[in-house]
């Protein structure tokens, strides 16, 4: 593993000099790579990344997002995916190819206010992101409590290979579903839900604290709660 250097940057800071592959929120100016956001820059051997501290959710193909139906039109559902763009779930993805607005009733499937687990099917800058519910586990979520966090903090809530979310889930006996867009659905016993939400908020608040894992573990306390 190459050493990764981390540093906090503000817009205009030079993240690195030389020849690197670089991701979003970084601009190359001559030899210099300049940060465009306030965030944590990671400089690897041949790659630099910038994780901004705040920002909207920007859709990416194949992301799992949790959205809310905010409107129904003749051809599909308009979904609020906690982004600057509204997602669109075409009716033909749900009813099949023979969908016709005349014979199918869209509100019989999903109504305004319903929460859906969806996947981003395609997204280009010229069009609103298209969603799909094809596949295991996608579709309407019928119970649970909704927690919204900053989308930039989703990776920390999930943790390396899901360790953080598994820890919270195990300790509270809750099912936790995290959308890449920062919407989280927590389902379980009432006590467990309260604990899980507290833990998620802790991760959100202390995103960059060292050894966050043990902090969360301490906050959750020993033993397993709920589990009814």
């Amino acid at each position: 593993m190459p050493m990764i250097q981390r540093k906090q940057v503000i817009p205009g800071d030079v993240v690195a000099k030389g020849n690197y592959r670089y991701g979003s929120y970084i601009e190359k100016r001559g030899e210099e790579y300049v940060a465009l956001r306030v965030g944590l820059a990671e400089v690897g051997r041949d790659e630099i990344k910038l994780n901004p501290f705040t920002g909207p959710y920007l859709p990416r193909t194949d992301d799992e997002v949790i959205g809310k139906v905010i409107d129904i039109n003749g051809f599909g559902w308009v979904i609020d995916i906690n982004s600057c763009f509204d997602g669109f779930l075409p009716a033909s993805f749900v009813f099949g190819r023979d969908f016709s607005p005349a014979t199918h009733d869209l509100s019989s499937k999903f109504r305004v206010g319903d929460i859906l687990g969806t996947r981003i099917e395609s997204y280009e800058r010229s069009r609103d992101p298209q969603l799909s519910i094809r596949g295991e586990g996608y579709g309407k979520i019928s119970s649970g409590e909704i927690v919204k966090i900053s989308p930039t903090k989703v990776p920390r809530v999930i943790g390396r290979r899901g360790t953080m979310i598994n820890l919270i889930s195990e300790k509270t006996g809750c099912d936790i579903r995290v959308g890449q867009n920062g919407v989280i659905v927590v389902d379980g016993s009432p006590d467990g839900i309260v604990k899980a939400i507290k833990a998620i908020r802790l991760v959100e608040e202390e995103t960059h604290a060292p050894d966050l894992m043990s902090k969360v573990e301490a906050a959750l306390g020993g033993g397993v709660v709920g589990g009814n």
Partner: protein
Amino acid sequence: MMKKNHVVESITKERMVQLLASGKRLDGRALDQPRNLNIETGVIPKANGSARVTLGNTLVLAGVKIATGIPFPDTPDKGILMVNAEILPMSSPYAEAGPPSEDAIELARVTDRGIRESEMVDMTKLGLIPGKSVIAVFVDCNIMNVDGNLFDATSYAVVSALRTAKMNRYVVKDDKAVATDELIPVPVERTPVSVTIARIGDKLVVDPNSEEEASMDMRITITTDDYGNICASQKGEASTISPEQVLQAADTSISVGKAIRAKILEATS
């Protein structure tokens, strides 16, 4: 696409209704418990008076400007009072720039009515030269963050700003109103307090937050004065309210209003 209004998640609404049935609310408050109220006055140095009020996450800034003006023909010896409110585009994902929305107009009018009809400011003391010149009091409010119940937050901001406002004393010289350097308070007589109550299902809740506002069937805003008199009220949304519930709402607004008035008086005296 523009988001038109707040859609509450169906699972959240289900829980809200469930909790209400057992006398609880999503944020842990009792049904007749308003959110935390915080009042700061004198936040705008150049205004005659100002207040920044937070009610939960709702944030309102009010400023008072006092000048001379020409009285209305039907009240030649009384001052002018105008309360206006504007919802800033950055305050909520659903607020837009441009001409004020219906909600913003209603907000301004309900707030103005509460202040005016409670006779908070003694308008007869604002007259200078009958028919020609009177003191005009303008209160402008900016809603900086929306989390429900703008009516009450704005009303508290206006009352707090007016209670702490200072104006130049005017004297009449050679048939002209002249400002002196002496600063005097605005002639405030009463402390109107508005209390908004929402009906969700068959339950009445005080000080609805934005989630509750988006799920409510109707709302009623009642303004009371120091003596427990009802001075103004406004009902909103399409649904109805039973006579018993109107009386219940009136009682609640008086009792809740009392506690809030004490807070306003404490913060502004």
